[in-house]
C-alpha cells in the first residue's frame, strides 16, 4: 500500500500526505539527506529504491529543478506498478507548477496537490483478503460493507467477489474468497499481493483449529502482510472467547457479530487499525485517533504519578476500545483501571 507521499524541493518538504504510518517527517529528512547524493547524481536512472527498516522508499529525482518525489511503500507492493505512478505524479506536479516554482506558496496549494496525489493513491489498490472456512460469515460481512442486503440463507460463494470501501482518498478492496475445501489450492494465489489478511472464524472449537492452516498459507504467500482474526458469531451461546482464540491461533483477534447493523463501521475501523491508517482519512476513524491520544495521556499520567487521571483515562480507553470492536484491549484497560483504582481512594 502507498503509505506516504513526500515532495521535496531544495531540501525542504513542500508537500506530504500520510495514508498510513510510515516514516515520520523528522526521520525522513535524514533519510532524504542520505540518499540525496545518489538520487541527484548525473549517472544512473532517475528512479531509485531504498529499503529503510519496515518501509520501501521509491524516489524520482529531477536534477535540474532539485526536486525529489518519494513514495513510502510496504514490502508487499509491486515496484513495477509503482514506477509509472511516481512518474505520473511528477508530470502532474510539473504541469501545474513548473513555470513559477520559485515563487509558489506550496502550503496554500496543498488542496490542489492533494487532488492528484489522492488520484494516484487510488491506483494502489489496497488489497484486503477475507479468508476462512465455509459458512463463517465472510460474504455476509462483505455484503454488509457494500451495504447490500444481508442473506439469511447460506449461499456458498463460488470463486471470489471484491467489495470496494471508498474512503477519503483511499480505496480499500475487500476480496472475499470461497471457503469451500475443494478450492484449497487457489488460496495461496488469491492471497498474493494482499496488504492485510482477515481470517474469519465462527468461534467454534473445530473451526478455530482448522483455520490455523490459513496462517501457514499466508506466511508463505504474503509474509509481510498484517494479519488479524475476526471471531464472528460471538453472539452464539457456545462461542469461544477472544482471549482463548488469540492463545490458540497466536494472532490478534477482534469480536464480530456480522449480522448486527453496527458491524459495517466496526469492520472498517478494524481494517483501519490493522493497516495503521491515518485517522484523518475518514471521520469513521475518530475513535481510533481518540484512543491513541488517550493512551498517550494515560501513559504520561502514570509516569507523573497522577493516578486519578490515569484511572479516568483507562476507563475511557475501555469504552473506546469496545466501540472499535477490540474486546481484548478493552478488557486489558479495564484491568489496569481497576488495579489502580484502589490507590485513589
Amino acid at each position, binding site marked *: 500500500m502507498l503509505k506516504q507521499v513526500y515532495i521535496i524541493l531544495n531540501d525542504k518538504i513542500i508537500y506530504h500526505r500520510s495514508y498510513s504510518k510510515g516514516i515520520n517527517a523528522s526521520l525522513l529528512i535524514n*533519510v532524504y539527506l542520505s540518499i540525496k547524493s545518489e538520487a541527484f547524481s548525473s549517472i544512473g536512472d532517475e528512479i531509485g529504491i531504498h*529499503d529503510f527498516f519496515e518501509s520501501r522508499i521509491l524516489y524520482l529525482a529531477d536534477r535540474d529543478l532539485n526536486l525529489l518525489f518519494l513514495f513510502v511503500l510496504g514490502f508487499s507492493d509491486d515496484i513495477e506498478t509503482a514506477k509509472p505512478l511516481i512518474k505520473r505524479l511528477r508530470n502532474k506536479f510539473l504541469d501545474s507548477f513548473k513555470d513559477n516554482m520559485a515563487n509558489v506558496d506550496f502550503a496554500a496549494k496543498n488542496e490542489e496537490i492533494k487532488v492528484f496525489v489522492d488520484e494516484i493513491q487510488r491506483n494502489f489498490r489496497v488489497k484486503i483478503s477475507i479468508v476462512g472456512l465455509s459458512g463463517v460469515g465472510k460474504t455476509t460481512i462483505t455484503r454488509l460493507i457494500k451495504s447490500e442486503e444481508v442473506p439469511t440463507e447460506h449461499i456458498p460463494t463460488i470463486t471470489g467477489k471484491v467489495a470496494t470501501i471508498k474512503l477519503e482518498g483511499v480505496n480499500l478492496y475487500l476480496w472475499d474468497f470461497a471457503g469451500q475445501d475443494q478450492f484449497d489450492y487457489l488460496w495461496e494465489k488469491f492471497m498474493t499481493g494482499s496488504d492485510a489478511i482477515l481470517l474469519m472464524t465462527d468461534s467454534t472449537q473445530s473451526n478455530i483449529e482448522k483455520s490455523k492452516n490459513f496462517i501457514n498459507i499466508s506466511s508463505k504467500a504474503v*509474509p509481510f502482510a498484517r494479519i488479524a482474526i475476526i471471531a464472528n458469531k460471538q453472539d452464539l451461546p457456545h462461542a469461544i472467547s477472544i482471549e482463548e482464540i*488469540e492463545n490458540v491461533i497466536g*494472532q490478534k483477534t477482534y469480536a464480530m457479530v456480522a449480522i448486527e447493523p453496527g458491524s459495517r463501521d466496526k469492520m472498517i475501523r478494524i481494517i483501519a487499525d490493522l493497516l495503521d491508517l491515518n485517522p484523518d482519512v475518514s471521520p469513521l476513524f475518530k475513535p481510533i485517533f481518540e484512543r491513541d491520544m488517550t493512551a498517550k495521556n494515560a501513559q504520561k499520567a502514570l509516569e507523573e504519578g497522577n493516578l486519578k487521571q490515569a484511572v479516568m483515562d483507562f476507563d475511557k480507553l475501555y469504552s473506546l476500545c469496545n466501540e472499535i470492536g477490540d474486546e481484548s484491549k478493552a478488557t486489558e484497560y479495564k*484491568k*489496569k483501571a481497576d488495579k489502580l483504582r484502589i490507590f485513589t481512594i
Partner: protein
Amino acid sequence: MLTKRVALVGKPEVGKTTIKKVIFEGEDPNELVLFPLEATIGIKYSVHEFMDLKISLLDTPGQSLPILLKDEDKQLTTFENTGAIIYIFDYPTWISDSQDIIDDIKSLYEINKKHKFEAKLILFLHKIDLLIDKKIGSKLDLIRKQINRQLELPEDLTIYFTSLHPNLVYTIYNAISHTFSTFSEATVNLEEIIKKSMQNLTKTICFVSNQDRNLIVQVSSTDFDTSTLYYLYERIYEESKLSGETISVAKFISAGPKILYKLIVDLSSYNASFKNLLVFSETLQEEDLNNLVNNIKKALEQNSI
C-alpha cells in the same frame, strides 16, 4: 583485566558487522541501513572495554559460514578460548527458511560440544522491526518457544530479539550488555545474590543497569509473564532517557497489557560498575518490594567484607 573472546557468526547480510559498527564504533544505524556495508572478507578482530572486562571481538564473514561449519581447523582458530558464540539471524530468513537456520545452530552446538570450547551459544534474532504486530510481546515469546522446541537441545538457548530501528535500537545495547556481563565476576555474584533473595517470590522481575543505562542483569521468578518483557524493556529505556529523578517518581509502570508495581534503587555505592536496581512485580506492593531490596543490599554488604 579479564579478557574474553566473543565470536559473531551468521549467514551473509544478516547484520553482524553493522551491529559491531553501531555498538562499538559509534556509526549511525540509519546510514548503515540506507547504504549497507560491503561483505566482510576474512575474520575481523577488534578489542573493546566493557565494565571490568576486555572483550576480544571476532567478526566472521557470512559467506564463509558453510566452510566454517565443516572445516575443523577453521573451527579451532575461530572458536578456541571463546567465551561466547553469538549466532545472528534475521526475521525474514526465519520466516522463509527456518530449517536452514535450525541446522546452522545445531551444527554450532555440536562443534562447541565436540571440541569442548565451553563457549556460551547465544542467538540474536535481528531485524524484528519487520515484524509488525499488534501483540508483538506474545509474538516474540511464541517465536522463542518455537525456536527452542525445533532445536531439541538438552537446554534452552538464550535468544535476544534485536533491531537497529530508531525506536528499537535499545534492544541491541541490551543484548550485547547482557551477553558480556555474564563474564564479569562481580555481575555473576550479584545475579546469584538476587536469585537467592527472590527465591519465594511470585510474578516479579529484577534488573540491574550499568552506568550506560543498559541492562546487565535480569532475574525473574518462574511465573513471571515473559510476554511483557518486550514492553518492559521499551518502557525502561524510555524512562532512562528522562532525567534520573523522574524514574523514581511513579510507583507503577505500564508494560503492554499489564501494570506493574515498581521500585528503583541506586546500587552504585556497592560497585562502580552498577547503577540502578529495578524491581517490577505484578503482585508485590511497596512493602514487599522494599524488603526484597533491603535483603539484596544486606547480602551485597556482607559480600564486600
